[in-house]
């Protein structure tokens, strides 16, 4: 199998985590998120809350992709499909008057798991570049499906009548509540993924990343572990779609376009592969950079693209690497 992921840059399998750094940075990141609503000095609160909520939603998607790319060497180029799946599950249910968040979340989880199981089972038969392409193909299938949903807006997308309710309460209508719900889910997903990565399952997954043949030889079936990881990652990305639809109160096929999948990979590499909090740093850097550049010029992508190229060429290990987060 090709070394699709720079193995040298990834943490060694059995290296004992340097507890200090491994804990401090994530704690700092989450403390910052928790404190943001208090920091009115940053600017108008609603604007700051909206931007940081967007960062956390993007971080959730990127973090789930890290389980695949950073820990499993499965470069999925169709991860945005799950975000779209989650977002559309919310919007379609809402358009039929089902606004209860728990019902919507159940639908998001069910569709994500089914889609991940079916597409993952087929994709994982291929390796390397072919895996990249086949995940892309499934992403495109969903993209075209969403563009053809004439009853739900088709190309134009669909505006949500209202955000999800919980027990009939419309508390997510409040941006601060939306913020804390997102924060809570991000924190929960981070702790869950951390536990997954540290577990025996996570160690097997990293073992498969390093050498699938050897793992098979010592009695592990890589396929089952990879498929399980694919389902977990898809599920979390689906939940980020649930949040995205609620925050923007709008869904569109653009959420599932292949460019969005490319963006997720970029966020991940920008932040640092193979460290879950790296995905959060990457999401923050990406969103803030785009936000700041767009204040200066409408042609911000002309600055953004070259920055991306320069980062790939010259910065190894992403932002997390700059903090010395790599062993």
């Amino acid at each position, binding site marked *: 199998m*090709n*070394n*699709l*992921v*720079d193995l040298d840059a990834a943490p060694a399998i059995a290296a004992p985590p340097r507890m200090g750094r491994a804990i401090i940075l994530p704690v700092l990141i989450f403390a910052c998120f928790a404190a943001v609503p208090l920091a009115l000095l940053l600017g108008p609160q609603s604007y700051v809350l909206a931007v940081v909520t967007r960062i956390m939603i993007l971080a959730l998607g990127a973090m789930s992709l890290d389980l695949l*790319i950073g820990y499993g060497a499965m*470069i999925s*180029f169709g991860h945005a499909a799950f975000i779209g799946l989650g977002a559309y599950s919310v919007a379609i249910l809402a358009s039929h008057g089902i606004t209860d968040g728990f019902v919507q979340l159940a639908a998001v989880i069910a569709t994500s798991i089914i889609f991940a199981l079916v597409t993952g089972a*087929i994709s994982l*038969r*291929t*390796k*390397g*570049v*072919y895996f*990249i*392409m*086949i995940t*892309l*193909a*499934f992403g*495109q*299938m969903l993209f*075209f*499906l969403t*563009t*053809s*949903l*004439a009853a739900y807006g088709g190309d134009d997308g669909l505006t949500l009548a209202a955000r999800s309710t919980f027990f009939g309460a419309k508390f997510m209508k409040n941006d601060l509540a939306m913020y804390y719900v997102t924060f809570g889910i991000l924190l929960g997903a981070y702790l869950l993924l951390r536990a997954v990565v540290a577990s025996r399952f996570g160690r097997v997954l990293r073992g498969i990343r390093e050498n699938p043949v050897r793992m098979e030889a010592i009695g592990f079936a890589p396929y089952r572990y990879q498929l399980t990881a694919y389902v977990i990652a898809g599920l979390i990305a689906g939940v980020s779609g649930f949040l995205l639809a609620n925050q923007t109160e709008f869904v569109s096929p653009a959420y599932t376009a*292949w*460019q969005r999948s*490319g963006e997720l*990979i*970029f966020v991940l*590499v920008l932040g640092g592969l193979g460290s879950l909090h790296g995905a959060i740093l990457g999401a923050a850097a990406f969103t803030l950079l785009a936000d700041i550049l767009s204040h200066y010029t409408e*042609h*911000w*992508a*002309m600055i*953004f*693209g*070259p*920055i*991306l*190229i320069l980062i*790939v*060429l010259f910065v190894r290990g992403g932002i997390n690497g700059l903090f010395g987060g790599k062993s």
Partner: protein
Amino acid sequence: MTLTLALVQVLNGLQFGLILFLIAAGLTLVFGVMDFINLAHGVQYMVGAYFVAAFTAMTGSFFTGLALALPAALIFGLVLELLIFRHLYDRDHLDQVLATFGVIIFLNQAVKYVWGAAPLNVPIPDALSGAVEITDGLLYPVWRLVIIAVGILVGIALYVVVNRTKLGMLIRAGASNAAMVSALGINIRLLFTIVFGVGAMLAGFAGAMIAPILSVEPGMGDNVLILAFVVIVIGGIGSIRGAFIAALLIGLVDTLGRFFAPVLLRALLDPSAASQTGRAVAPMLIYILMAAVLFFRPSGLFPAKK
């Protein structure tokens, strides 16, 4: 009536497939020889279309515009190679995907900056506008026939070069085992630069040929790029023959699928449901085809022998 329409769809499918082949040919050789994933190949197609639009507007003649656009596309591709791609050959695929993704972001915006966001129109050259009657009552645009003819000619030329010349022998050998070719004393970098330049020019040529029947706009290369990747993956990476067959297959499946899916579904469903389901299923057909091909033949239909 339906038969005539079907014939038109077949011709449209061929024309689309041949355009895809022009794009995919360079992509598959670059991928095969240097193991380099170039997502920026689609923007080279876009840039070709913009070049022909700009030069045609400047000179007032499509053919002069085309004659200027081709070398411009070649130089543009070589500059990209020199500035960026050259530094990525030794990197893993993830880095290549990302850096070339950055090139896409930049160029999509750059053409907007230079030529504006509004689509440009390129008039069909007067001598080749109009339509010819192929069978009774079937009029078909001359320009689309020109695209079909040119696509077939380029396909034959590429086939001859790749299969009958020394350069082609080296390219085929490079696609099978680049390290061995290099060890035999061939300058693989130079070989690659030639392949890359020709590939970029072919993509630009495809963009220039399609410009008169499509609007020239930012981002026009993005979806074509994905289709070109589908073509080379189905065909087998590094194989010109595979790319040719897969491109025609994709062109026909896509075009005929959009036409026939609603018709066939009408036999099963009521008309409105059939047309809606058909619209949903048709664009997915090629991806379903790709998933099916990879499921049964994980390295494509005609893999370069390793």
